[in-house]
């Protein structure tokens, strides 16, 4: 009888410690999962920013193209400052375009590694990959904003055809 009661006590003790250990494991997994969700959300938000900046770039590019049509019929009225602005813009747009070539395909390349990490439930790798994507997105946003600023200067400079006031090259 005594032996049985000791056995019962032993079993109870071991089970309770195992249950405690399991409960401690669960919050850990939950914490990692929530970290993945948060990082993924940041990527999603950054993705929206990239889309918006691209839309702005597209609109501004079309505005500049329209301005150029107007300038082409009024070439004589281009001031030296405006010519300098156009020259500088050509160089900057060219380097923007070449830079974009270098970056193209970098984000989409992460698709397969994300899929694999999700299948393996490798949350730490997922966080790392999302962080790398965030860095690329930030860089992309910065480049696009620089391009948009350049277009702003061009729009401002070209819309003043005939007037020589102001330096648009800065």
């Amino acid at each position, binding site marked *: 009888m005594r032996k049985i009661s000791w056995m019962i006590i032993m079993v109870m003790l071991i089970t309770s410690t195992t249950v405690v250990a399991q409960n401690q494991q669960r919050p850990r997994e939950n914490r990692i999962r929530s970290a*993945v*969700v948060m990082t993924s959300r940041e*990527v999603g938000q950054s*993705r929206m920013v*990239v889309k918006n900046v691209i839309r702005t770039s597209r609109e501004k590019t079309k505005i500049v193209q329209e301005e*150029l049509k107007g300038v082409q019929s009024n070439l004589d009225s281009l001031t030296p400052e405006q010519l300098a602005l*156009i020259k500088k813009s050509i160089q900057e*747009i060219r380097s923007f375009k070449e830079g974009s070539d270098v970056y193209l395909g970098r984000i989409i390349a*992460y698709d397969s590694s994300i899929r694999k990490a999700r299948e393996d439930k490798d949350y730490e790798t997922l966080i790392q990959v999302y962080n790398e994507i965030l860095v690329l997105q930030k860089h992309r946003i910065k480049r696009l904003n620089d391009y948009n600023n350049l277009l702003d200067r061009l729009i401002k400079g070209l819309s003043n055809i005939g007037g020589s006031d102001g330096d648009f090259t800065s």
Partner: protein
Amino acid sequence: MKKRIVSLSLLIGLASLLLVGCTGRQVTKVIETPTHDLATKEMALRDEADETDLINPIEQEETNKRAEDDSIKQYESVENEDTTDSLKVEVPEEVVEGDDSQTDEVNEDKEETVIVAKSENLEEIDERALMLKELDALLEDVLTKLDAVEEDDLSDDNLFDEGGD
């Protein structure tokens, strides 16, 4: 009685060892756990390092490409001078302007040729018109590039949400 005390103390010792073992395990894991705060801080730190790691090779590549392009452009400008000179001699104005039975590609080349052929020498080419044309062409390229940049994105199902996995 003594036996009971000994076995009880053994049991207590065993249980406490198990508990200590579990607690120790928990502490180790918690330290390793990247909570969101930790992940954010880590991310900020990593950002600088990663950005340098990720961007530096790209910028290096970009610089190399630009240097390459510059040398190509220099080569092309030298070559173009030669070509335009030869064009002036070889292609009569009427032939260039009047020929409409070419493919689109040839027509583009012809457009360039028309500008060159219309003037008697390079100095008379309206630099302004050429610059505007170049800028316009660049902007058109950028528009195409923007489409490609927009497509270089994660697919929707690769964003992790609460209900996922």
